């Protein structure tokens, strides 16, 4: 075991896979010699050389297009899109190309690639560099969508994503890069499509993703110590495939369901889970399921304003407490 930052876990995860498979290549803006704007790829260029770790021009379409062409002809590319907000300038590849080519070609074309991206708020970059856009990708058939919350999960899920035969969108949270965790030694390989119960509990289920996981855990501690409410916190981890068994299994035990979502409210990932719960777990529920989200607004830049709009541990705890007491 060693303590590792989330940022260093990204480096270790990529290195682990590049070490294992010479067909794994890595491209993106400022990722090679500069080591990444978030310093999450430092040292890879030195480890694997200029043929496998490549700086690109500021050409997001070229980055994702090239990753796709390389993937469909035998490589296992990892592409970085610096900020997930930039998906909007290369969304054709995500929404129309590598997500659909297998289907349209009746199974002939395969695109085993990973798109890594810095997602989410908390660093006060304003409306075009802070969004949580995992729901943009969740709605597209053919993609897999992953968002880890801890250093160990970063390594394990990144490895699973690189080894997966489908295109995977891998959301790293910008505000988690400096966070730390104990990480086991040796190779780590996790499984896509698996949620994780990060804190067991019996009174309510709180589903969270990425930065919202530590916040949900903090809220759960407050609820336990101050109100005697024992919450189960589930890290969803993988939006596609979605581990509904773990989620609905938890609801069947706690009988209450909350989601904590950083994405703006409309069509956020929690809405789909609520719909599934309404269909399949209605009689398990003792009260209305509640979504705790960022409101349906562009994100403001000022720290004071941004801090208000994201779900905070206080807002989560207060919402759960009031809902359980009503």
């Amino acid at each position, binding site marked *: 075991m060693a303590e590792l930052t989330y940022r260093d876990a990204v480096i270790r995860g990529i290195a682990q896979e590049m070490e294992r498979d010479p067909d794994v290549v890595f491209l993106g803006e400022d990722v090679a010699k500069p080591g990444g704007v978030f310093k999450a790829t430092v040292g890879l260029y030195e480890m694997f050389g200029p043929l496998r770790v490549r700086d690109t021009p500021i050409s997001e*379409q*070229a980055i994702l*297009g*090239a990753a796709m062409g390389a993937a469909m002809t035998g490589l296992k590319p990892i592409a970085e899109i610096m900020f997930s907000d930039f998906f909007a300038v290369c969304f054709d590849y995500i929404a129309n*190309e590598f997500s659909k080519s297998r289907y349209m*070609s*009746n199974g002939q074309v395969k695109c085993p690639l990973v798109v890594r991206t810095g997602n989410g708020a908390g660093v006060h970059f304003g409306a075009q560099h802070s969004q949580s856009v995992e729901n943009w990708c969740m709605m597209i*058939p053919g993609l*897999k969508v992953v968002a880890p919350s801890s250093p160990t999960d970063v390594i394990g899920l990144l490895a699973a994503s690189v080894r997966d035969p489908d295109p995977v969108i891998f959301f790293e949270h910008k505000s988690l890069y400096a966070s730390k965790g104990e990480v086991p030694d040796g190779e780590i390989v996790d499984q896509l499509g698996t949620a994780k119960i990060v804190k067991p509990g019996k009174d309510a289920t709180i589903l969270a993703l990425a930065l919202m996981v530590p916040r949900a855990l903090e809220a759960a501690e407050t609820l336990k110590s101050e109100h005697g409410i024992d919450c189960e916190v589930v890290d969803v981890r993988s939006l596609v495939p*979605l581990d509904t068994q773990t989620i609905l299994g938890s609801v069947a035990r706690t009988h209450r369901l909350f989601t904590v979502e950083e994405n703006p409210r409309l069509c956020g990932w929690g809405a789909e889970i609520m719909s599934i719960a309404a269909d399949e777990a209605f009689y398990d529920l003792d009260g209305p399921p509640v979504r705790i989200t960022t409101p349906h607004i562009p994100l403001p830049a000022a720290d004071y304003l941004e801090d208000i709009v994201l779900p905070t541990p206080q807002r989560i705890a207060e919402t759960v407490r009031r809902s359980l007491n009503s």
Partner: protein
Amino acid sequence: MAKVKDRAPGTAGSGLNDDIGEDKRLAMYRTQVVIREAEQRAFDLFLQNLVKGTSHLSLGQEAVAAGFAGAMQKGDLSFCTYRGHAHTLARGVSVEKVLGELMQRDNGLMRGKGGSMHLTSVDHGVMGSYAIIGAHLPIACGAAWRAQYKGDKDVSVCFFGDGTTNIGAFHEALNFASVWKLPVIFVCENNLYMEYTPIADVTAVPNPAADRASSYGLERIVIDGNDADVVYRTAQAAYQKARAGGGPSLIECLTYRHSGHSRADPAKYRPEGELERWKQRDPIKIYRERLLQFGVSEKTMADIDAEVRKMVDDATEVCKAAPPPPADILTSDVYADGGWAWRN
């Protein structure tokens, strides 16, 4: 290459003792006839409501497909647009598979799951037809990057229309390919119209592809896209350069589509006489005359014409008799496990 030079033109069986040679020329002639007959058949079947959805024909542009495919080696990769029937056929995909897909039958190339705009046959090196303008230029770069990285000798060739030269992905791909020195060839089929609007009305330079080449450190190349020999020789040079590690080429082929943009377009925006003038420069007409000059007999070509016509007739009948795709393929191949499951 080994043909005898001193045989008199017009003599039965006389060959062309130059860099292209008789066998290659007859093959390229046949390719053009296959495309012409299949595309014309697609149009006729559309009029009978047997080709559904949309389709974009390459009638009049056959020489580009024949010339580039003629100069390709096995293993080279083609990336096409929604106007991709010609390039798919030129790589040897059967007319039956193509017509079957256009007619949305179970015997189609992708069993009806892709349609006219997405013809794909990986076994033939046809790595897809892309219906979002410009999307496949970066994708071809990626395939070329793989060849460069692995030391493979194949070249990726990316065909697109003049309208593509005004979209961002075109410029991103050209810069990217040039900086990375990728073995990729960008082929612009300039047929004068982006869709309905003349390309000249919406482009800042007269030659929409070639006049941009210098921005990316590439040579300015404009060729007669209706002469398969010219196309073939230009392609050869570009393949050789790419295989030798010399990087990408951008080639603008001047050509003309005899039909509208898509099946819905009667092309009434064209000035009077333009189509007739271009039909004087019909690529198949040009090539027939060339072959006659070189001593290939009328009969040789008539035999090819008849053989192709029969092949297209037979394929049409097979497709007409083929069933529609079964509903159980609806949910197949969304994901690599063969299915569509997004949850447990």
